[in-house]
């Protein structure tokens, strides 16, 4: 379609050489919502890694906050074409969370409060590439953005950074999560523009 609407430019979008292909910069932090925002009290919160043997490694909020905490500054890229540069987070590295986890399996499914799921290969979570983040821009993560805690896997499209995360389940195969079942790419590398199947 070559139709152009006179005088319409859309909300501020800016190209920048530091951005992956097809992305533009935004100032605000758009919210992608696939459902109601779950209201999770940190008193009821837990994060659990479950392996093939049925072993569960679980942390409640206090235990989680007692783990080594890292400050992370990173760019984020949403599949809906917006990016933000130099965003600031605090969270626990997945390397820390996996330190005592014994698994032979190579894939994980992230599960969230509210039912959302997304699949991430274990390789993409380890070696300083991913966190469970509970602060954004110096403030506790707001429920709209996934608080109390969300996955942060900034080298993949942001739908992989599951909001309201409650755990990871080890999987033998790379099975699709919520968006991946409906057209989105299994891995989602923004530099390769892995948006859809």
């Amino acid at each position, binding site marked *: *379609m070559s*139709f*152009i*609407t*006179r*005088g*319409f*430019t*859309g*909300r501020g979008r800016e190209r920048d050489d530091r951005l992956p292909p097809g992305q533009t910069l935004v100032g605000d932090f758009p919210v992608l919502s696939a459902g109601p925002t779950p209201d999770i009290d940190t008193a009821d919160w837990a994060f659990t890694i479950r392996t093939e043997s049925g072993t569960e490694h679980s942390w409640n909020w206090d235990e989680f906050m007692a783990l080594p905490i890292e400050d992370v500054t990173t760019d984020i890229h949403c599949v809906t074409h917006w990016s933000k540069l130099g965003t600031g987070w605090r969270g626990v590295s997945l390397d820390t969370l996996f330190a005592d986890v014994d698994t032979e399996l190579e894939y994980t499914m992230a599960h969230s409060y509210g039912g959302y799921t997304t699949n991430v290969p274990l390789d993409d979570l380890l070696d300083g590439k991913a966190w469970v983040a509970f602060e954004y821009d110096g403030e506790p993560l707001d429920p709209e953005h996934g608080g109390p805690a969300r996955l942060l896997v900034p080298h993949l499209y942001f739908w992989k950074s599951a909001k309201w995360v409650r755990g990871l389940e080890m999987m033998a195969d790379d099975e699709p999560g919520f968006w991946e079942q409906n057209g989105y790419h299994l891995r989602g590398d923004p530099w390769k523009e892995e948006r859809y199947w």
Partner: protein
Amino acid sequence: MSGMPRPGWHVATVAATRRETPNATRIELDVDGWPGNEAGQHLDVRLTAPDGYTATRSYSIASSGEGSRVVLAVDKLPDGEVSPYLVDELRAGDRLEVHGPLGAFFIWRPAAVTDDARPVQLIAGGSGVVPLFAMAHAHAAAADPTPFRLLYSVRTPDDVYFASEWAALAAASAPLRLDLVYTRRTPDGWSAPPGRITRDALEAAAVPAAERPRVFVCGSTGFVERVADWLVELGHEPRDIRTERYGGT
């Protein structure tokens, strides 16, 4: 559903725009190939930027019936992407891509067609009055005997949409009663202080549940949610209530 005009993508030319309220614009479109529409339907507007970026939003249609003239009324959300363009930038002669007419659920047809003589209660918050105006207008045009009542919540007297049309509709032979609620400022000498609609005000101004009215509620999602919950508490059958949420809180 039989007899529904088929939706399609059309190019619309803006015939005229005019200030509807200090914060809203009425847009009259001539839509090439428009099949006509039912009262209460909407269309989707797609705007395309020079770099190919597109934004699509839904707008209710204030007009109904045959012909290629389609009337919209759009409220400006200050930080919105599409509504400020439609309200402040669009002018006569501009062309828009529209998809419609859409929706066969939130519509009203004359009693002569539906054989349903039950009264109709319309409830609007702000720009949510647009499809209900189409219904009230179609009701008057058909000289339909169904009792209509409209409860309309607006910020101030200046924010009433279709202000010059309501009196004529109320004076038409088709029975229509209009009740206004002002949330920020009332006209001088108004009996109630400004404030959000309450459950009691709703009960007092709406056709009682015992008469089994068909109810159409339209406005921001928060408004519709509150009103729909109260209607059920007041004894209205959920299946008699039809809602059109516009988004927002």
